[in-house]
C-alpha cells in the first residue's frame, strides 16, 4: 500500500464535512433574499459600517498578535531555562487554564476589570487610583491577549527547546557572546514557532466576538460581531455567509502573502 493512501479516510472526511458544507454556505452567500444569484452579500464587506468593523478587527487582531509575541517570547525563553522536571509539565501548566470553560473565564475577567472589580479593589489597597478600563478596547485587548497567549507561548517554547544545545555551545566556543548567540542562533531557529503562533493567534482573533460582547460592553463592533448579528439577530443568513466568506478569503490571502510557504509547512507544532 502506498503511503499516501493513509490519507484516504481524512480526504473523505474533509470533503464530506468541510468542503461540501463550505460550498453550500458559499452558495448561500451568493444568493439574495429572493433566491437569485448576487454578489451583494460577498461585496457587502466593503460597505462603510462593515469596512469600519473589519479595520477595527484588523487593528485589534494585529495589536493582540504583537502583544502576544512580546509577552510570549521572553516567557518561552525563560521557561526553557527553568526546566521543570519535565517539559510536559511546563506545557500543561500553560494549557490547564484552557480546560476551564471559556465563557466562565471571560466572565471572571469582567469581574476583575469592572469599576468596583477585583483589580480596582487591589489598587485601592495599595493606594493607587482606580482604573476605568472596563467596557473599553483596553479590556477587550486584555481579554484577547489572555485568551490567545498560550497559543503563542507554546509553539515558540517548542521551537526554542528543540534547539540543539550543542549548537549553542559551538557558537559560544567560537566566541559568540550571549547577545550574538541569541541573534544568530536562537532567534532564527525560533521563527517557525513564532509563525505558527501568529497563525494560531491572528486568525481566531479576526473572527472572535464573545470577548467583545462581554468585555467591550457591546460598544465595540468587530467584524465577528457583525457576522454574529447577521446570523443570530437579524436572521439574514445570506449576508452573514457572504461576509464570512469574504473575511475568510481576505485572511487566507493575507496569510499566504505574509507567510508564504511557512504556513503550509505547518511551522512548529503548537505542542
Amino acid at each position: 500500500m502506498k503511503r499516501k493512501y493513509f490519507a484516504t479516510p481524512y480526504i473523505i472526511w474533509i470533503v464530506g464535512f468541510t468542503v461540501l458544507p463550505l460550498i453550500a454556505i458559499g452558495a448561500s452567500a451568493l444568493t439574495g433574499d429572493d433566491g437569485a444569484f448576487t454578489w451583494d452579500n460577498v461585496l457587502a464587506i466593503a460597505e462603510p459600517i462593515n469596512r469600519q468593523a473589519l479595520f477595527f478587527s484588523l487593528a485589534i487582531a494585529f495589536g493582540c498578535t504583537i502583544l502576544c509575541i512580546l509577552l510570549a517570547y521572553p516567557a518561552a525563553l525563560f521557561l526553557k531555562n527553568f526546566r521543570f522536571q519535565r517539559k510536559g509539565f511546563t506545557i500543561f501548566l500553560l494549557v490547564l487554564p484552557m480546560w476551564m470553560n471559556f465563557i466562565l473565564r471571560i466572565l471572571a475577567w469582567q469581574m476583575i476589570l469592572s469599576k468596583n472589580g477585583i483589580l480596582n479593589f487591589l489598587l485601592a489597597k495599595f493606594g493607587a487610583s482606580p482604573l476605568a478600563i472596563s467596557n473599553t478596547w483596553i479590556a477587550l485587548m486584555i481579554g484577547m491577549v489572555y485568551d490567545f497567549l498560550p497559543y503563542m507561548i507554546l509553539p515558540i517554547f517548542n521551537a526554542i527547546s528543540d534547539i540543539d544545545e550543542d549548537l549553542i555551545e559551538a557558537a559560544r566556543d567560537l566566541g559568540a557572546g550571549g547577545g550574538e548567540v541569541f541573534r544568530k542562533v536562537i532567534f532564527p531557529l525560533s521563527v517557525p514557532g513564532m509563525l505558527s503562533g501568529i497563525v494560531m493567534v491572528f486568525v481566531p482573533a479576526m473572527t472572535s466576538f464573545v470577548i467583545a460582547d462581554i468585555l467591550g460592553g457591546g460598544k465595540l463592533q468587530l467584524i465577528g460581531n457583525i457576522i454574529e448579528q447577521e446570523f443570530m439577530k437579524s436572521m439574514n443568513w445570506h449576508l452573514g455567509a457572504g461576509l464570512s466568506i469574504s473575511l475568510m478569503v481576505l485572511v487566507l490571502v493575507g496569510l499566504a502573502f505574509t507567510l508564504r510557504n511557512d504556513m503550509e509547512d505547518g511551522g512548529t507544532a503548537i505542542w
Partner: protein
Amino acid sequence: MVRVKNAFMKCYLALVLLFLYAPIFVLIVLSFNDSRSRVTWGGFTLRWYGSLLSNRQILEALETTLFLGLGSAAAATVIGTLGAVGIQAMRKKGYRVVMSLTNIPILNADIVTGIALMLWFVRFIPLGFGSVMIAHITFNIPYVILSVMPKLKSLNLSIYEAARDLGAGGVYAFFHIVLPQIGSGILAGFFMALTMSMDDFVITYFTKGAGVNTLSTMIYGEIRKGIKPEMYALSTLLFAVIFVILLVFNALSGKGKNTEDVIERSR
C-alpha cells in the same frame, strides 16, 4: 549578576502565570460564595459542592462533555495522524491543496462552521449526539494534523524505506517505524483536540440534537439568569483533580529520568 537575572526571570514567569490563572482563582473563590449572585459575597460555604452532586443535569452534561471530548479527540487523532502521514507523501500540488483545506475549519468563524454543518446534517441525518460528534471530529482533525506534521518532517524516512525494502508491509512499517517517532506529536494533537472540544460552544450549539447538553451549552443557557454556583464548584473540582494528577506525575517522573517529557520523547 546571575542571581539577579534568575530572580527577574522568575518574577516575569510568575506574572505571566498569574495573568493566565487570575480568572481561575476568581472561579474558585466564587465556588465558595454563599450567594446565588456572583457579585455579592454571602460568606463561605461548601453547599454548592453538595448540590452539585445531586444535580443530575450538570452531571449528565459533564458526562456528555467528557465522552464527546475523549471520543472526538480519539477519532480525530486516528484520522488526522493517518492523514498527516499520507499527506506528507503527496506531491507538492496535492500537498498544498489538502493542507489549505485543512486550515479551513481554523480560518472559518465558529458560527459559520456551526451553521454550515447544521444545514448540511439536516439533509442527511437527524441532529443528535452523533451529529455533534461528527462536528467535533471535523474541527479537531486540523489541530491533530498541525501537531503531527512538524514531527513527520523531522522524521527520518530512510528507516521506513529500509523497512519496506526489507519486506515489511506498509501497515507494519507504519506501526513499528513511523508511529514511535511521531508519538509526541500525536499525543499533543490528542490533547489539543480534547481542549478544543471541551471549550467549543458555538458549533456544538448548532449541531446538537434536542436534549443533548454539554457543559458549554449549559453554561450558555445559564448566562441569562446568572451562572449557577454549582458550575463554579464543578470547575474548581475539575481544576483541582487535573492539577493534582499533574503534580503527582511530575513528582513521580522526576525521580526517574529527569529530562524526559510526558509527551515529548522522540528526540
